[in-house]
């Protein structure tokens, strides 16, 4: 796959690529505008816990359109580029997950006794940024 002979014929000094049709780009553009309208419209309703999920679902759809078509991942010969992008996303999740889980589970174990500590309900506790508990 790798060739590094010095100076091949001049035909291989230049690229020969077929672009996507204009209507693909136009379609993606209009789709993005439409989804922007959707996300603003939907923000006017209150779905409670689902507000974030709906907003993120729309954002992920818009992002997918940009990544697949504008950034050409859908038609890229090198699958590696897509793998790289997904790996970045994956490790971001690896970062977020345990970090959030740590905060959520803090104070659940009494360091002295090793049992669940007697604490007020999570909501109230979570709003208090309390100093870190030091095990004695």
């Amino acid at each position, binding site marked *: *796959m*790798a*060739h*590094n*002979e*010095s100076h091949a014929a001049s035909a291989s000094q230049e690229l020969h690529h077929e672009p996507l049709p204009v209507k693909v780009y136009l379609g993606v553009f209009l789709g993005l505008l439409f989804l922007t309208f959707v996300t603003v419209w939907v923000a006017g309703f209150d779905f409670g816990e689902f507000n974030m999920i709906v907003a993120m679902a729309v954002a992920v759809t818009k992002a997918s359109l940009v990544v697949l078509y504008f950034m050409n991942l859908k038609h890229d010969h090198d699958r*590696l580029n897509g793998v790289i992008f997904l*790996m*970045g996303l994956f*490790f971001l999740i*690896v*970062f977020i997950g*345990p*970090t959030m*889980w*740590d*905060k*959520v*589970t*803090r*104070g*659940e*174990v009494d*360091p002295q006794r090793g049992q669940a500590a007697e604490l007020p309900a999570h909501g109230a506790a979570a709003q208090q*940024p309390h*100093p*870190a*508990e*030091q*095990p004695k």
Partner: protein
Amino acid sequence: MSTTTATPPAAEMDRWPEKHYWNATKGWKSWAFTVDHKRIGMMYLIAILTAFFLGGVFAILVRLELLTPQQTIVGAKTYNQLFTLHGTVMVFLFLVPSIPAALGNFFLPMQLGAKDVAFPKLNLLSFYVYVVGALFAIWSLFHGAIDTGWTFYTPYSITTNTAVTPMLLAAFILGFSSILTGLNFIVSIHKLRAPGMTWFRMPLLLWALYATSVIQLLATPVLAITLLLVAMERVLGIGIFDPAMGGDPVLYQHFFWFYSHPAVYIMVVPAFGVISEIVATFTRRPIFGYRFVAFSSLAIAFIGFFVWGHHMFVSGQSEFAGMVFSFLSFFVAIPTAVKVFNWTATLYKGSIQLMSPMLYALIFLVQFTIGGLTGLFCAALATDVHLHDTYFIVAHFHYVMMGGTVFAFIGGLHYWWPKMTGRMYNEKLAKIAAAILFVGFNVTFFTQFILGTRGMPRRYYNYLPEYQRLHGFSTVGSWILAVGFLLVAAYLIASLRNGKVAGANPWGASTLEWQTASPPPTENFLDTPHVHTGPYVYPDEELVPRRAA
């Protein structure tokens, strides 16, 4: 490896080449604006060795202070600055770039059979970015230095009045140098392998550098944003990590260690690659279990991202998270152990030559194993609660970082010295220096395991009198180390003038860089090599090593 490439006849290869990368072009501009990876590697080498010297000076001063239980030469705040600078310089200015930027830049393209890395100008940029970062660090040094520990924990790093912000910016900038190098290496390995060099015909150094580059690219940006956030904390008081403003200092530690744990693999995985090269050459055998060793580098890179919380067991992190991080941390020992077993298996029935690079590799096997095993004590939640912030931890990471990476780096420097400079160094002095370093290292740091288990805390400038004997012993060890390093520097520099002409392949090694002259020509090879076999092939008749005593 078996190649067909137009090389001059053997006699000519053994002579000093007329034209090579040192004399190809002349004048300071031809170095300052070079895009030759070998020249860039050389410049990096000089820079990181300077950093190593600086970090070493701080280390000597730290150990001098610890000679007596009370103040010996400096007060508390200065002591804090000394160990902080020792750590920061050693980690960011030396260890992270060392093998990849100095040896990797030089040899990655050559081992690939390529003319250069994929993006030569980006390579030069990465060097200048390193220099700028180093200058910021030096600026910080002369304008109040820092006393936060290399870990910059909040809230102290927010409130202390030492020159934290320039040092944060220094590390931020150095991170970009690291990212650019990693980027270049990955693209080079994907795109510039010589004809016939499949992935599994690559030397193991390249697998190690590939895995390292992946870690660099995924982890370093998180460090960048972390340092930027702390700088913004100091300047704008943004409050994210500051409990006084409603922020969470443990969040800082999550951010910091998400980079810094993988960072330790950035520092040690290239060393593994170097050891593979040296062990193969000086046992004249292919590395046992090549694919296992190759994949283990990737496995370490992957698993290393899941374990950062083992630095935070006593930080206030939830106990559940602590348990999970502890459990996962044990897994990273598995691929590491695979490597150690495989190198040992390679030795069995090998034709072992105890030349100086091999001495360093053997010492590495002993010292790194100790470091790795003690890592398990640290990974176990129950024991770490007692060992955390004691000298046990200090000893553990010095065994892997110094006993491991530094010794591998010095070994690699010896191994590739003839290729880079065209000269052999004095082998007898090299063996003596290796022995001195081995003794000095273990006197300094084994003592610290004992200090740690007996309760001596780290980052303390004074201590209870009962620890003095051990501290004294450790300090004497640091002097032995200093002598060893100075000896190495002396005979290596002397060899530039007086060393025997090395010839193309003084060790009888098999990888591609040894199939061209020493020092190599600018374009590396006269013709593109074509590869037919794996990297470690030692036919009996050819490639007989010369003993350069």
